[in-house]
């Protein structure tokens, strides 16, 4: 038989009546194209909400960056073209904002990753792992603003515990921690490290559980010691996990200004004025919204660019192979 495939129960019954022993029966509903539109309809509410909260502000940002935005009611914005962007080239605070941001971000990331991996390795398979992980997580749960206040008090020049410690040991000779150009940067970095090292440790810990035991053992039999083993087997297996951790932290560093705003507000003498704090000043202290939008746009662009570069650098060697990239 096999003349044609039955699409309805009736057609199927017809085939059986003809003496078919097996039935090729595919209900029409599954062949219909409209299924795709159906899915689109289901997703539409989410798409509209997403567009509202991310696409609209994005285009509004571009609009603002090309205008001199007027705040007084009734006045319309003045078109200035790329003037806002051109002005950034001669803006010394813009350049130093970037420099400070890179310095801050690099310090935070390197200390957090180093410390986080170390903590994870120590925690891994230790008897107190579960208890310690819970304790380590606490700073992460804290609102950044609260952490900022906490550390501001710890650094306080009158009753701050860290201030007292540094003075007693003799490393801090005069002035206060947050009032000293050299110390202020380390103070804000320390706060970030305290709050976010646990996140990196946690992600790394999850990665450590996934390192194949037999590869470690094979490498030991091949003649490697503990440290060698860590470098050549554990670390490559941690790559994808470290990538996620670093990406998350790097983007946070570029966005979070809560702690810095509270502790130093960018001071002293712009020592901790990372670009986002400068952006905050321009937009919400000087209310030059157009220029602020231009700064924000460059920040967004570079964050995306750096994110892509990081992904490329840290690409999982094993995955690179599967996608046919490597030889």
């Amino acid at each position: 038989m096999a003349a044609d495939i039955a699409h309805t129960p009736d057609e199927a019954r017809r085939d059986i009546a003809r003496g078919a022993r097996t039935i090729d029966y595919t209900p029409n509903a599954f062949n219909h194209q409209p299924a795709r539109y159906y899915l689109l309809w289901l997703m539409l509410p989410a798409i509209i909400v997403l567009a509202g909260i991310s696409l609209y502000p994005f285009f509004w940002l571009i609009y603002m960056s090309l205008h001199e935005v007027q705040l007084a009611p009734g006045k319309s914005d003045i078109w200035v073209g790329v003037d806002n962007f051109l002005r950034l080239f001669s803006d010394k605070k813009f350049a130093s904002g970037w420099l400070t941001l890179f310095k801050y971000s690099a310090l935070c990331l390197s200390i957090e990753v180093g410390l986080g991996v170390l903590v994870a390795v120590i925690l891994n398979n230790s008897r107190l792992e579960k208890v310690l992980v819970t304790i380590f997580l606490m700073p992460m749960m804290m609102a950044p603003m609260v952490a900022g206040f906490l550390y501001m008090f710890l650094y306080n020049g009158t009753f701050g515990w860290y201030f007292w410690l540094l003075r007693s040991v003799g490393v801090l000779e005069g002035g206060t921690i947050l009032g000293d150009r050299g110390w202020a940067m380390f103070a804000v970095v320390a706060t970030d490290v305290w709050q976010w090292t646990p996140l990196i440790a946690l992600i790394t810990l999850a990665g450590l559980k996934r390192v194949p035991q037999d590869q470690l053992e094979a490498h030991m039999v091949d003649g490697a010691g503990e440290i060698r083993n860590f470098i050549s087997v554990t670390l490559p297996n941690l790559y994808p996990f470290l990538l996620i951790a670093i990406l998350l932290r790097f983007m946070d560093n570029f966005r979070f200004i809560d702690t810095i705003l509270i502790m130093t507000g960018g001071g002293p003498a712009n020592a901790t004025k990372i670009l986002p704090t400068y952006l905050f000043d321009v937009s919400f202290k000087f209310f030059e919204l157009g220029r602020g939008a231009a700064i924000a746009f460059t920040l967004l662009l570079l964050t995306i660019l750096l994110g892509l570069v990081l992904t490329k650098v840290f690409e999982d060697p094993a995955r690179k192979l599967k996608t046919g990239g490597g030889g």
Partner: protein
Amino acid sequence: MAAVTIKDVWKYYGKTLAVKELNLEIKKNEFMCLLGPSGCGKSTTLRMLAGLEFISSGDIHFDDVRVNDLPPRERDIAMVFENYALYPHKTVFENLANPLKLRKMSRSEIVERVRRAAEMLEISELLNRKPGELSGGQKQRTAIGRAIVREPKVFLFDEPIAHLDAKLRSHMRGELKHLQRRLETTTVYVTHDQLEGMSMADRIAVMHEGVLQQLGTPSEIYNHPANEFVAGFVGEPPMNFLDVRLERSNEGLSVVHPAFQLTLTDAQRHLLENGNAESDTRIGIRPDNLLIESGDGGSLDIAGSIFVTEPLGGDMLIEANLDAETRVMVKTKIREMGGPGDPCRIGFDIEKLHVFNKETGVAYF
């Protein structure tokens, strides 16, 4: 190339006993197989040899050197793992070169050695690939290659071919054996597949529940199993076991079963008398050592009926009922046997009979 001595070795995991008082001497250049079902302590023993597990008590010597406290890298061993344990981000060449590189060999020496090992294993054309691009058999060859490049004192194999398909497995059995003879390196090979042990090893150590059951050549293990466990574990299809009584008659000592009666040889009688065998015992006979004829007019002693036949091509396995409760497996050259329920006659090759103590399982012969 070293002799390996395992002396009074015990291994506990917490309170769980994994290996109990193991004594084993592996001779220089010998192919020793540790055979047993999963959880019998064979892999644990191998890992203690490799230095991947601590020894709870006892000593392991390589030649005269006590290696208990040496880390794996100082033991001069090479190991092939069950899951190959290749480094996924390294090419086949780099995988093979790894043990040499870690021992700070010169580049030219490394290239030469890897080339030689790759040629021996016929993976020369794969050297630039990564493990993800290899088939199971190729991965397995690479893992073996990583072991042989270094010419270590001892090879340790942990079920290296368990994951290959049946055809490749039988091919690799031959190759591994050939390779070991050619390299003349002491080898400890762990497997749960009795066929691998029988076909490759110089000697087999059968383990069960952490205890060494029997140590001997494949033929000793097969023909003279020390106890019921070894007898049942080695050989495919497994040995038939039947509960019987020993009775004296005018002809000598007989084995009496509700379905049949067999007179033992004089030599067998002596062994049983010397062993003070109790009258309730258990006999074992391999399917190969049972004879079978179709129909009920044959010359064999015992009348039975066929339960099921399983033709295997050259051979045929027949399960036959001797009485309502007793069923035995018979292996025979293929011929027309009839179907289920048809009558047949069965005979014992009395010389090949084994008798075990019913309580302890220890073999009298």
